[in-house]
């Protein structure tokens, strides 16, 4: 495992949910992995850009990867959208000579080029490799009942993770359990939140209906919060509840949950910026058992 990555925070965590960026930085700092910053643009949002022009998407995605490759580090994403987007751009580039020529010709116009030697990672995988470090740094046994939402672009297309069974993953479950929480099963657990593919901005009614189905299933499971590994899912699950006006399920990004387990105060994570109040959750955490003195 490497101890240095370039952090690709993605638009949503930077510009809408800084709590996610902040907790990610804290968590990686504690487990001894250094995160560098680079001149990143939007990944670009695959739902919109790939849908309009695959080549534009690939080129802009590779431009981002080049930023990290210039410093000889790999890219660490904390969002399924960014992950899927950059991974796909990287794959398209690596797999075809024609694409390599196209991208390098385009990048050449702004003085850049790419050799295809940089990898794109999802933070959940890196954290899973660091389970021991997570346990070491854990201050609280949160004891929460958690509904895990993987999000589509982490699981699929499964070529991203040759070792992961997209129908029965357990990466996030392992992490959640290591933090002293219970992963609660619910109906259609691996289904979509409704935000991807440009549907969030393009067909809000459809997007919300998909979300409604998902949240209805989670509600039945009676959990303390719903956990995601993607700020875009996070946005949909959190803001979508405000639009649907039916549910009050607190939404946490995995970095936030780990931050809380590491004993960071919710206020320092800006949890109050969430649409759905996390107050009840915070109360419960206050009562959580300390796992070390």
């Amino acid at each position, binding site marked *: 495992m490497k101890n240095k990555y370039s952090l690709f925070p993605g638009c949503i965590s930077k510009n809408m949910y800084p709590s996610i960026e902040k907790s990610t930085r804290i968590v990686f700092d504690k487990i001894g992995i250094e995160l560098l910053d680079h001149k990143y643009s939007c990944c670009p949002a695959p739902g919109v850009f790939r849908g309009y022009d695959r080549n534009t998407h690939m080129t802009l995605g590779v431009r981002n990867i080049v930023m990290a490759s210039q410093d000889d580090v790999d890219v660490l994403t904390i969002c399924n959208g960014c992950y899927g987007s950059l991974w796909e751009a990287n794959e398209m580039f690596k797999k075809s000579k024609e694409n390599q020529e196209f991208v390098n010709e385009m990048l050449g116009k702004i003085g850049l080029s790419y050799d295809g030697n940089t990898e794109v990672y999802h933070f959940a995988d890196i954290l899973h490799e660091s389970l021991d470090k997570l346990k070491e740094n854990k201050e609280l046994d949160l004891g929460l009942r958690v509904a895990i939402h993987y999000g589509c672009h982490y699981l699929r297309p499964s070529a991203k993770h040759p070792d992961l069974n997209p129908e*029965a993953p357990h990466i996030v479950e392992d992490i959640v359990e290591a933090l002293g929480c219970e992963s609660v099963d619910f109906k259609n657990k691996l289904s979509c939140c409704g935000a991807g593919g440009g549907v969030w901005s393009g067909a809000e009614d459809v997007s919300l209906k998909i979300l409604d189905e998902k949240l209805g299933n989670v509600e039945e499971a009676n959990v303390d919060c719903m956990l995601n590994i993607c700020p875009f899912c996070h946005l949909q699950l959190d803001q979508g509840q405000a639009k649907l006006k039916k549910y009050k399920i607190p939404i946490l990004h995995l970095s936030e949950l780990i931050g809380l387990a590491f004993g960071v105060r919710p206020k320092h994570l800006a949890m109050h910026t969430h649409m759905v109040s996390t107050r009840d959750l915070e109360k419960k955490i206050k009562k959580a058992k300390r796992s070390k003195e």
Partner: protein
Amino acid sequence: MIGVFICFCGNNIGGYVHVPELTEYFNKKEGVIAFDTMFLCSEIGQNLIKEKIEELNLDSVVIASCSPKHHGGIFQACIGEKMNQFKWEFANIREQCAWVTPNKEEATEKAKAIINGAIEKAKLLTDIGTTKVSVTKDVLIIGGGIAGMHASLELSDKGFHVNMVEKKETIGGNMVRFDRIFPTDDCAMCTGSPLLADVAMNPLIDIFSLSEVTEVKGRAGEYIATVVKKPRYVDETKCTACGECTTHCPVEVWSEWDLEMGLRAAIYKPMAQAVPLKNRIERDSCIRCGTCENVCKAGAIMYDDEPREFKLTVGAIVVATGYDLVDLSNTEYHLEHPNVITGLQLERLKVPSGPTEGEILRPSDGKKPKHLLFVQCAGSRDRRHNVYCSKICCMYATKNARLIKAENPEMDITLCYIDMRTAGRGYEEFFDTAREMGIKYLRGNVSEIVPDGEDLIVRVEDTFANEPKAIKADLVVLSTGLIPSQGTRDMGTIIHLVSGADNFLAPVHVKIAPVDTANKGIYIAGTSESPKPIQECITDAGMVASRIATFLKDPEIEIELVTSKINPEVCIKCGTCADNCVYDAIETTGEFYKVLDVSCQSCGKCSVTCPTGAIDLSLYTEDQITRQIDGILASDRDSIIAFSCYQCGYNAADLAGTAKAKISPKIKVIRVPCSGRVTMQHMLYPFYKGAKGVFLAACLEGQCHYIDGNLQAKEKVALAKKSLDIMGVGGHKLNLFNMSSAEGPKFVAAAKRMVEICQ
């Protein structure tokens, strides 16, 4: 004088290659006389060959026609009438030339090169003799399912002594676990139990239960099999199967025989009709409490029983090791849910003597389901599991749906399918009545089964209505696809049978020799060959019995001496060949080293390892192969030579032809018995002569018919690549590709890759 006989094969060759041009061309060649005819395999064609051999006193013959896999035997016999049966070489200008080369000019040029190679090789052919060896009349049957049982009865009726080796505690296989059988709906046990009894009581059949074959050595007509019998912990000679032990045993665990639909004790027999009818202690669940020992009046309990190893000498072997179901746990079907079961588990629920006494009760709460749903093609016709159709599940699901509907008319039964495949006598009629009974057939492939408490939500599209649906069901049955059983898969390593891309055992020819394997005297029957209904297993078994009766009819069989020969003048007695020969076919005791003709399997690996070139394989000698290369390259200098193993790569190349795939005319196949026969010299020599590239088409790793030939070839290729690098030619122009005999597309891809690399 060499006679070249070229076949038009109607339009099959004539339509793609200018045959008359070939004839004219070769007639101009010194020492060669060429003829063409419409169908060389016909009586007219054969007579032509025979006449000309006699009339012109030919030295040897070249047959330019279809693949030798087709009519090689016919031509060999035909030529054998007039001269030594091995003094001919073939040129495969149909599958490997006409059918893969769309451009007629290019095809003709390629045919010239192929024939020229064959002529050069034919010049060096020598007489090869035959010898007679005695045979053992006993037969070994591995696997006691319906195929194995039926074959054993047929063979014993013909007077053969049969050894039946069965892995489980009883013979019978899968069929005896069913309730009824399609298409007649008669009870499986009513059919099965007389068979079981016949096998059990037949004096000519010895049954070894809980036993497995671990090794097979020897040769056709006299194979020596090592068998290991696992301990039963019950003395088979004493146990009366009274069942007192089972009643008292305190252990209760899931029963494997009932596929976890019911319980068993640690000491048990799987069914009342078990053969042998003996109890057995399953050690992992036994707690060693001593109860059974106390209650057994026969004193049959043997806690200290041990595995036993013994050898059987047999003339022929039948492999009937059957199938298993593909494992669908942790998939979108959620087989982990108690109320999602496989078709085989449903059979156990339906059997009157089974765990629920024939009642359909769902496992989670023992309640009768209101809505039962069948999921077809679960794990079949699906690139993620098995690409093939399992052939029988449409019928077995329909069978059980009908039976259950008849007994429970109020039950809602839905069957979701992609295509209903009910081809077979009486099958469509069977399906017709199912619909008339009110069973709903919904055309759509189930996407997922969503657990909803104890119930299930089945997501499926009604493709006729273009509407996705979520159907609530309280018991879901997966019509799970078939895969070769572990035992079937093991046959690849134990007796080196070749399997297809689907992992089922491959016959020598699917169409014309469906139960023969590449190993003489070894036959396959039943579902170890492919998914099929009982009826076809029985047909197979009958055919196998007949093939064996033919094979073993005389006290001796003739074997062809296409074997390795040692030249004592060059041999330095280093022993390398003997160390390398996996068949122990080299005798080192006498004054000279000698090849034991009956043991030699003709792989030719020895000739590759010999440091002095003293040992050589007849029909594929070092010089013959070299001359064949010369012949090809003299005709078309920048060819790519494809040494193709006759067990796999050669067949794959033929299949590419049958599929009319496109292959560059630069690719020229040279047949070798095994990729391990190809020497470094053969790999490098073509480059000296101007060839653009060389590749080996070898069996999949772990599936070499001669055990490790492809691995040896891999090493040689690595070395030769280095030499090519040093020579400045470039090691990348020499490659080895692994493929099974069924993988035509892999050969095409390999050829394409080589052309890309070498252009």
